[in-house]
């Protein structure tokens, strides 16, 4: 039973690492700021989300689990909003 | 486990002396407007009284007054400790700060019913902050607590430099800030190493433990380097002249007379109280050599200045140099090191009073004439006799002519050099005196010459009297009785943590 939980953790965290990797590649390889923004916004949110998901079964207390979820939610919110802010700013004046 | 509480009778005075200006800062900030000035001026007599009471306690007990905050003995708690030198410095600071406060009313007073102004609020609060910071520096017994005090001093002094808001003063303040920040962080790194080596930052406890190890030398070097930058010892003096010459006169007097002495005082604390056990003759000679260079370079540059306030500021660079001769002249436990010690403290005091008096006079002069160009002072002495009397008397002390505190200091330095066989230090002392004579005459000669001078407004008598009073104190120091020098020895460790 324990092993199954571990397996789930590993799978989720591994997938998370992959998304971080993908995000970085996008940030480096994509041709212009807007596409790079696209890569970043999708990838790092999913990456962190999967890591948090993988850690969730390992949380000792409900509060610890709640913190994981809140952290993810906060980053998701920030990521989405800043992506929009940067996107608008980019469209308005190339800077 | 817990050490006994080392608090002595009168110890609570130390806490009150620090908390009084802190409370003043808080009250001034909240009440604002004219109240800031009222609070600052209203607290000066109490601050002065507390300083005198502490000095009285130290002198009558013949040993340091101590207070352990929170009833917790060091190393866990913080102790405050006033010895003979602290007591003298507290009183001197109280006198100069009080004088500067009353002198500054003419410029920084808020008229009845007027709204709060930027310069007034800043000036009165920062003046109290300088008082608080210096008090902690003089009585602090814990190296980290002293770091906080150093920062307090920086944050108080920098805005005073640029209080008039001109770009050149902003640049000077910024330079000063960067030097001061470098100084504090370097000091703090030394503190970290001391803690890492001995697990305490209490000065007497450290003094018992320190040994001549690389860690201790590194810590000492870092702290000294930082403090030198703050004290503006040559070659780290570049920030001082523009900063001190551009501040308003009352602030310049406090900055030049007292604030640089704060970091110098900590240098003394470090070498004579924390590290008396170290074989530091080499370090002392380096400091003495830098001091000598400062005397020569500062004096020569003072000779070349066209503006009176810049001349006085460069003279500070030179006079700071003298202070550092105390390291070779008072190091170790010798017959002559007592003389060297007395000389050093006397130089701090004489310069503090003389320089404060001169900056205040220079301020009066600039207000009366509308400029402070030395070349255009012709006839000014007849128009402003009292101001020039003050400048002359202050100059007397800077030159080291009798009877004055400056004379005592330099005479004692010569004595200590001769008695210790370190003849080489007599050269900068004598050369510095000659050069000082040069720059003081540069002020007085044109002023005493014939010339037509138009006064924009005659200075107020009371302000002239304040400056003159400080100059007279600098003179009176030359007549200090033996009891005064005995006071300076109270609580001074001789070597390896032995208390006198």
């Amino acid at each position, binding site marked *: 039973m324990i092993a199954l939980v571990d397996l789930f953790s590993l799978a989720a965290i591994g997938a998370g690492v992959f998304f971080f990797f993908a995000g970085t590649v996008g940030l480096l390889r994509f041709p212009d700021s807007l596409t790079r923004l696209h890569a970043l916004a999708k990838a790092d949110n999913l990456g962190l989300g999967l890591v948090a998901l993988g850690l969730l079964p390992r949380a000792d207390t409900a509060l610890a689990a709640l913190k994981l979820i809140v952290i993810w939610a906060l980053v998701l919110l920030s990521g989405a909003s800043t992506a929009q802010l940067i996107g608008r700013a980019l469209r308005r004046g190339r800077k | 486990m817990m050490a006994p509480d080392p608090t002595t009778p009168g110890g609570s005075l130390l806490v009150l002396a620090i908390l009084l200006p802190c409370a003043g800062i808080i009250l001034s900030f909240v009440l604002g407007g004219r109240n800031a000035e009222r609070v600052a001026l209203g607290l000066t007599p109490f601050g002065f009284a507390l300083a005198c009471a502490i000095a009285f306690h130290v002198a009558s007990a013949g040993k340091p007054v101590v207070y352990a905050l929170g009833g917790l003995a060091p190393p*866990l708690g913080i102790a405050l400790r006033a010895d003979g030198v602290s007591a003298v410095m507290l009183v001197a600071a109280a006198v100069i700060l009080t004088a500067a406060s009353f002198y500054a009313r003419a*410029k920084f007073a808020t008229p009845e019913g007027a709204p709060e102004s930027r310069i007034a609020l800043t000036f009165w609060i920062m003046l109290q902050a300088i008082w608080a910071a210096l008090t902690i520096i003089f009585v602090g017994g814990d190296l*980290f607590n002293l770091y*906080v005090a150093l*920062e307090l001093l*920086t*944050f108080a002094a*920098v*805005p005073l430099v*640029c209080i*008039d*808001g*001109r*770009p*050149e003063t*902003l*640049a*000077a*303040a*910024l*330079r000063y*800030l*960067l030097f001061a*920040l*470098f100084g504090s*962080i370097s000091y*703090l*790194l030394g503190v*970290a*190493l001391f*803690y*890492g080596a001995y*697990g305490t930052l209490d000065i007497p406890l450290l003094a018992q433990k320190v040994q001549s190890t690389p860690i201790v030398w590194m810590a000492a070097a870092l702290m000294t380097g930082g403090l030198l930058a703050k004290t503006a010892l040559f070659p780290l003096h*570049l920030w001082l002249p*523009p900063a001190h010459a*551009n501040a*308003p*006169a009352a602030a310049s007097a406090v900055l030049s007379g007292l604030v640089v002495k704060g970091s110098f005082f900590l240098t003394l604390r470090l070498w004579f109280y924390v590290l008396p056990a170290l074989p530091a003759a080499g370090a002392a000679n380096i400091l003495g050599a830098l001091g000598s260079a400062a005397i020569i370079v500062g004096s020569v540059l003072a000779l070349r200045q*066209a*503006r*009176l*306030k810049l001349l006085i500021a460069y003279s500070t660079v030179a006079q700071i140099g003298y202070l550092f001769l105390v390291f070779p002249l008072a190091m170790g436990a010798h017959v002559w090191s007592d003389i060297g010690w007395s000389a050093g403290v006397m130089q701090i005091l004489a310069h503090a009073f003389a320089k404060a008096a001169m900056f205040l006079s*220079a*301020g*009066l002069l*600039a*207000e009366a004439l*509308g*400029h*402070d*160009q030395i070349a*255009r002072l012709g006839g000014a002495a007849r128009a402003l006799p009292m101001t020039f009397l003050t400048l002359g008397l202050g100059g007397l002390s800077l030159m080291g002519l009798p009877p004055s505190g400056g004379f005592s200091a330099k005479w004692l330095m010569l004595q200590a050099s001769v008695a210790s066989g370190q003849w080489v230090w007599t050269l900068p002392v004598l050369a510095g005196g000659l050069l000082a004579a040069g720059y003081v005459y540069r002020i007085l000669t044109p002023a005493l010459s014939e010339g037509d001078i138009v006064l924009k407004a005659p200075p107020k008598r009371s302000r002239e009297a304040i400056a003159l009073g400080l100059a007279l104190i600098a003179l009176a120091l030359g007549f200090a009785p033996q009891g005064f020098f005995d006071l300076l020895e109270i609580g001074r460790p001789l070597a390896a943590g032995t208390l006198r």
Partner: protein
Amino acid sequence: MSPWVLAGLVGAALVGLGLYGLILHPHPLRKLLAFNLIGSGVFLVFGIVARRGAAAGFSFDPIPQAMVITGIVVAFAASALAVALILRLHAESGRVTLDPEAWTKPDDGAAKS
């Protein structure tokens, strides 16, 4: 190599780098950044001192750690004051140079007291 040794070496490197930048950069904001590097290097030294002092059931000595917290706040306050000065200097004069020579005007003798 234990983590604290590594952190200590990083701290030393940061102090060195910051010192280099502080001396060399003419721009005051760059000097401020360099100062902040020195600051964090110094705090790291406190950090390893604290970590090494683990004893009596504590995994660190709380006193140096508390000092770092005080230090970080003071360093921020210093940065804020410096930034305010730099921005004001820039707004007033359009320049940010610290060179005192640059500020000596052909002296008209109009000294402010």
